[in-house]
């Protein structure tokens, strides 16, 4: 049997070059992906090697770092008098974060319920962009808003009980910042709940309130919790708002009217002070960054795992 004429005369091109270039492209794309792993390794390596310069110093002990209640890395230029206890910075961070969460979690969750369960398409079409705009406002702008509007109004309403820079105004601004994030992530989770569940609930005689709170929210709980955790880690890592509005004094109280230097706020102040490279005070920057990174990384990791592991699938 002979081949048809068209195939007999055909010249087949070698695919060797094609295979080679294909392989080169795949390798270069893989290198791009490796870059992201390198960034993580870079962050961890940088934090460990640089903070070693801090922990190796005689003025610092690990237990003192974790338990001391004073942090004077910026105030005392003399190393002998400097106190390195992370607690005041942690306390400041958690005061600001707590206030931010008190604002953003309920508001974000209820707005998300409204958007996914009640709002008409028309209301959605302008409420969603509003939230997107708030999410896109640079954080330094919210920091300015905190010192320009929130702090003076707090002082006005409380007859000056709040100091000019205080944890509450920063917390409120950070809360505004986290609100769109909580809202859009929880809404995504709730919209992924199949319609049949809602119809089942309505068929059994549930009111809209009962359907959304007792059926949809529990069904979307893994997504909602991971949204909360992500917002929490965002609030802890927020920098510009606290640098502007929370003050520069590390305090160890529960009083939200006082100044509260946070971990990120301290890093900014340290950079601004242009302290000499290589001193223990300078390296304390990295010790604070290690703490910050560990907390946020764990939060994000747990959030991701919850979202993946406990995702309800309706097939």
């Amino acid at each position: 049997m002979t081949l048809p004429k068209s195939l007999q005369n055909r010249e087949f091109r070698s695919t060797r070059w094609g295979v080679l270039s294909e392989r080169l492209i795949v390798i270069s794309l893989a290198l791009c992906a490796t870059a992201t792993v390198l960034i993580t390794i870079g962050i961890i390596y940088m934090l460990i090697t640089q903070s070693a310069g801090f922990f190796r110093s005689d003025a610092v002990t690990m237990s003192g770092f974790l338990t001391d209640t004073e942090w004077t890395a910026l105030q005392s230029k003399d190393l002998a008098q400097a106190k390195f206890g992370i607690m005041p910075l942690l306390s400041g961070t958690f005061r600001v974060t707590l206030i931010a969460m008190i604002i953003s979690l309920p508001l974000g969750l209820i707005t998300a319920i409204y958007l996914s369960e009640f709002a008409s398409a028309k209301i959605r079409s302008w409420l969603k962009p509003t939230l997107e705009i708030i999410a896109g406002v640079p954080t330094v702008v919210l920091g300015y808003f905190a010192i320009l509007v929130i702090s003076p109004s707090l002082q006005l309403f409380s007859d000056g009980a709040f100091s000019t820079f205080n944890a509450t105004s920063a917390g409120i601004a950070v809360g505004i910042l986290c609100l769109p994030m909580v809202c859009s992530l929880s809404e995504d989770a709730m919209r992924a709940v199949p319609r049949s569940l809602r119809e089942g609930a309505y068929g059994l005689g549930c009111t809209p309130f009962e359907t959304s709170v007792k059926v949809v929210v529990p069904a979307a709980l893994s997504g909602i919790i991971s949204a909360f955790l992500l917002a929490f880690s965002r609030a802890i890592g927020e920098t510009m708002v606290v640098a502007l509005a929370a003050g520069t004094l590390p305090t160890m109280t529960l009083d939200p009217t006082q100044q509260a230097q946070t971990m990120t706020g301290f890093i900014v102040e340290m950079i601004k002070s242009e302290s000499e490279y290589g001193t223990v005070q300078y390296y304390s920057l990295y010790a604070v960054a290690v703490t910050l990174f560990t907390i946020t990384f764990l939060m994000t990791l747990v959030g991701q795992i919850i979202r993946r592991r406990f995702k309800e699938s309706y097939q």
Partner: protein
Amino acid sequence: MSSMPDAIVKQDAKYLADNARRRKRFSLWFYFLCVAIALISVVILIFLMASIWSQGHSRLSSDLLTRSHSELEIERSGMWPSILGSLFVCGTCAVVALPLGVGTAVFLEEFQPTNKLLRWIHGFVQLNISNLAGVPSIVYGLLGLTVFVYMFNVFGQIRVNESAGMEIMGYKHFYQVLTLEPGHVVFVPQSDPTKRQTTFDEPFQAVDPDGNSIEISIWTPGTPKPSDPAIRRQTVRAGAIGGTITERSWYYFRLPFDKSFLSAGLTLALVILPIIIISSQESLRGVPSSLREASMGLGATTWQTVRDVCLPAALPGIMTGAILAMGRAIGEAAPILVVMGAAVAKSTGPKHLMDDAVTMPVLIFNWAGRQQDEFKELSAAAIIVLLVVLLLLNSTAIYIRHHVQKAQS
């Protein structure tokens, strides 16, 4: 007949009706609560915009857009260098982050491995990217400070007014020496890079500020001093001391990068890389697999499919994500503050690759933290300019999302 449960047999009609009414009323109240709380975010936004506008609108002038920061003339301070600086920093950031991000997204989405070990690595990289997106931007700032600004001190520290580190290209060192004509200097190319000063006793070849090569003669004190300005410009007192000065071309390059706009741009690229990867992945995932299968069925290789089918189809989504990420980059202050410091005195844009720069958010941060009311108002005005830029970017993104996507489908 099977017996009914008690709860159904002993129904109390009045109780049930009351209960239903109560639940319905409660549900209605909940609805109103939802509306009210959803409105709060709108109110916050309006309030935010209104308060910034009322503070800053009086300072919106051509001075703001064309002049630079000034401690002496607070009234006439402006933000022109910071606009240029933001442009340079974000340009660098885009040039680095876009190819890297889209490349990673393509690799993760289109080249999914079948091997078990590779699949595990794939999942790990994916988890790693989601985690990177959650790392606070200030940590990236510290990474940039250590890796780009100081490079772990491998090349030595850079001190003020000293060209330390390892210079690679685009620089010329000169000795600068005063001539007899007051205020006039000539330059002598530096031969020994370690010698920071030199003394002139012999006639020598030099370059005048216009770039002409001239012969310089020496005047010894005690002999008659030349009076003709042209000669005085070519004469140097014996024993005059020349200090070094460096002329840098735009491509001046050295290691480490020091507090330059290049360091800042690279650091910002790290910050927005996860965002670009995630949004590009989502738009690639949105490309129907029938398109891929058709292309593969026609004999295209995976890369040909990606290049000619998937990427064009996903382009509007990728561009939208990229523009939104750039919006994030323009507004980001913390990493830039860490990398370049909080100084805002610079009066021009960056002149060479290693030059420092001021960006808009850092300028706003600096002004907002000052005591003077003028600076607070200027800060609000600068915020308005920044928000207008962001608005333009975001509306481009929305335009692309709505129109280009519609045209394609």
